[in-house]
């Protein structure tokens, strides 16, 4: 892997804020019954441009002239749409309304929506907790209204409590099949729980009742987890294009399409997509992480580190911190070893700081430990426990990798086969399966799987790609049957 031509010491990370976010999650979890915690906020993106502007058939005489003689009080005072600042501003407005009328279940519901959406921007689990509290406040005031209950299901999903999310959404759909939002959450949860047939059925219903980008992007997710990487890209592109017309959350759809393009191996297009998402929201964590992966894949390690430092300064997600640690170790500059250790340490702190964080990032943390050691049978137990909880392809793959790390490749191969039988064809699953096949001495299968994984380019992170290449080289150098 090439390194950046301009190596420079990593800025010493300023940790109080990121760690503060994690710590805040602990505090909020501990205070989960407190409803008065409506103090922060968030906001959505704006409609994109439209070339139909001049399509009205009207001649443009241009005789409107701006006058500077009369000021408009307060004009332009608000932050732009899509910014975290305006979301926080709006949370403040609804909090004021709720304080004036504590029976206002509408404001409580809106606060739940806002905090939930804020969490999408910040990855701050405390925001999810606040959203959950607000939703449950609304449900308590007005038990017959289903909006807050639908939100509760969606928030539980975001907190990776997939069983609870499914149960809540399922109850709403059974009570009223027209609750399409709950149906969407039920489909989402079904995918994560490995109930793909159920998810497919629900998404088919949604596509017929409410066709549009929000459904197409879910269909893309289903395509991806069942191995149709190009199908996922096509659906995500369709969703992105439709969202652009509708003006709905263009940043998200650009990011989502880029993610599927990266997972399908298209680094160039994916990078453009991540940059488009960041043009909408410069603090987009997912886009920053994705961009870093593309940069690292292209050998621009310094750029990737910069992107990850930006992301981790916003929120120290274990995925970003882990990759940051890897890249710093690869760059091996004067201060990089210490900075890498700090990043790894932050990942390891995640589980101990917050039970919620440990739950949300459970697979990330197990995988991190497997890749960065030391390995232990505890990791196999954790992976097996994860499979018992969620029997999707990802759980089988993680258990396979844990078994491999414990030298149990035959058992690992069984799990890899289970993952691929469920349809998984992503680079990581293929890489893990290829390494396990090599460990079992099945060199032809190993080479085939590793070839496929490596061909997907930026879908593998640098360490994974490096290891896959090493194993492939070893396998290819061995006598083939």
């Amino acid at each position, binding site marked *: 892997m090439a390194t950046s031509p301009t190596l420079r010491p990593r800025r010493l990370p300023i940790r109080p804020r990121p760690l503060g976010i994690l710590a805040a999650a602990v505090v909020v979890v501990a205070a989960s019954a407190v409803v008065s915690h409506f103090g922060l906020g968030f906001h*959505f993106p*704006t*409609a994109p*441009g439209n070339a139909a502007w*001049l399509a*009205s*058939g*009207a*001649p443009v*005489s241009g*005789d*409107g*002239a*701006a*006058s500077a003689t*009369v000021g*408009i009080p*307060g004009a332009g005072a*608000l932050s732009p749409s899509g910014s975290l600042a305006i979301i926080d501003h*709006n949370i403040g*407005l609804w909090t004021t309304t709720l304080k*004036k*009328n504590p029976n*206002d279940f*509408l404001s409580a*519901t809106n606060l739940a929506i806002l905090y939930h959406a804020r*969490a*999408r921007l910040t*990855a701050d689990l405390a925001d999810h907790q606040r959203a959950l509290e607000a939703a449950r406040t609304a449900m308590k005031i007005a038990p017959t*209204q289903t*909006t807050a209950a*639908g939100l509760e299901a*969606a928030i539980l999903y*975001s*907190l990776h409590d997939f069983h609870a999310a499914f149960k809540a959404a399922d109850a709403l759909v059974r009570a009223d099949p027209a609750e*399409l939002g*709950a149906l*969407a959450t039920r*489909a*989402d949860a079904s995918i*994560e729980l490995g109930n793909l047939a159920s998810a497919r059925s629900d998404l088919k219903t949604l596509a017929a*009742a*409410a066709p549009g980008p*929000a*459904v197409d992007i*879910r269909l893309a*997710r289903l395509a991806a987890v069942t191995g149709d990487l190009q199908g996922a890209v096509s659906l995500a592109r369709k969703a992105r294009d439709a969202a652009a*017309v509708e*003006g709905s959350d263009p940043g*998200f*759809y650009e990011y*989502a399409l880029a*993610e599927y393009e990266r997972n399908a191996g298209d680094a160039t297009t994916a990078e453009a997509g991540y940059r488009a998402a960041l043009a909408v929201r410069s603090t987009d964590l*997912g886009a920053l992480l994705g961009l870093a992966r593309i940069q690292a894949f292209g050998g621009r390690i310094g750029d990737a580190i910069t992107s990850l430092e930006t992301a981790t300064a916003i*929120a120290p997600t274990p*995925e970003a911190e882990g990759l940051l640690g890897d890249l710093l170790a690869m760059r091996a500059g004067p201060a990089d070893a210490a900075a890498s250790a700090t990043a790894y340490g932050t990942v390891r702190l995640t589980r101990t700081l917050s039970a919620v964080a440990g739950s*949300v*990032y459970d*697979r990330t943390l197990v995988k991190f430990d497997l890749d960065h050691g030391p390995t232990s049978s505890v990791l196999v137990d954790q992976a097996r426990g994860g499979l018992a909880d969620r029997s999707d392809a*990802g759980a089988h793959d993680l258990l396979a990798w844990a078994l491999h790390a414990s030298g149990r490749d035959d058992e690992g191969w069984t799990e890899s086969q289970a993952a691929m039988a469920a349809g998984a064809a992503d680079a990581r699953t293929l890489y893990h399966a290829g390494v396990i096949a090599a460990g079992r001495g099945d060199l032809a299968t190993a080479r085939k799987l590793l070839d496929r994984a490596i061909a997907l380019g930026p879908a593998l992170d640098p360490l994974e790609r490096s290891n896959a290449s090493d194993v492939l080289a070893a396998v290819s150098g061995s006598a083939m049957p």
Partner: protein
Amino acid sequence: MRNASKLATLGAAMTVLAVGAAPLLTSAADHLDAPALGHTVANGAIDLVSTHGNRDINDLYVFPAPHDPGRTAIALTTNPAIDLFGGDFGTNVRYAINIDTNGDNVQDIAYVARFSREDEDGDGDAASNLDFKITRYAGRGAVSYTGGVTVAHGDTNARSKTVGSNNLWAWTGVRSDPFFFDLLGFIGTTTLLKTGTAVGTDRLGVNPSDFFAERNTNAIVLSVPNSQLPNKIGVWATTSYHNESGWHKADQIGRPAINTVFNPTADKNDFNRTAPSRQTTAFGGKFVTNVEHGLQFFSSLDTEGSYTDAQAAFLASVLIPDVLVYDRTSTLPAPLNGRALADDVIDVELRVTSGGDPLNLFGADGATGLGPNRDANGGVNGDGVGPHTDYLATFPYLGVPH
């Protein structure tokens, strides 16, 4: 118009704005959640339109411009959810203020606002701040939106008003929402009346609270020289949106809350798409029938009993077509004669809808002579909340955003 489903969009009560989440990476974070699969559910009907707040109308105001004698102010507020999801004007949406100048309920003048990121004025900031353009159509072109002339253009949220060469004043952007209403009380009372099941604990008349006191709205504000308008005009606003199959009607409003109160969910979109000149006869006259039935239902709250068929029919003939009539020479109150920002139209409509006769229309001594006599009070005479205090005396009249 600010109908029930759109109020619910803002209030999220009857709106199932489901934020179904779909992480792309199961091991990772919440940021990856898919965006809202928005729709409304009311009485079992699914309304997908409400997800497009930028084409939803909140309110229409027509009033004598304060401190600007000789001018008529027209304000159209849109997008009920900007305090929730943010939101600009739609770049594929046509916002039309239609003006009938001869009483036939067909527009003779139309001011149509469009918005763009194409940097029409060349100031380079359209990417962050939409440009607006207002086109004036006249005669038959006011119906077909053809042959118009651009009379104003500029930036949204500009720090100064735009003055067109025809002396039209224009401003577009975010303002404090001038509307005032005890929404929670209204939902509590109407839901209980209609379903027998309470929602929350609020009722009209119980601890009134103005749900809109801290709300913002998108606004298109015009000030037109009276010399360009006859004394009496009829005004209504419409929105339409453009997609790959052309232009489509979206929303419509004349007087406040007519569609909200009287049409059942299944008829609301039909009403929004029916021009005022056809509202009395379209769909077999169902809009008139809906108003009559609604008046008789809500007036049953009055101790004097429901409106008679003839009384209900008379009021329906006033309310349909849904056009906001404004006569500079008239002394009738709003919303029978224009609507100013501080006019408590909700109180008037609650009173009349629930059986009150404040204008002494009914009884032997009433203007119509239709008996029996009714007093000025209805079953519900107001929501208990009054005008905001942030209205401006000068253009654009709507208050500073919260």
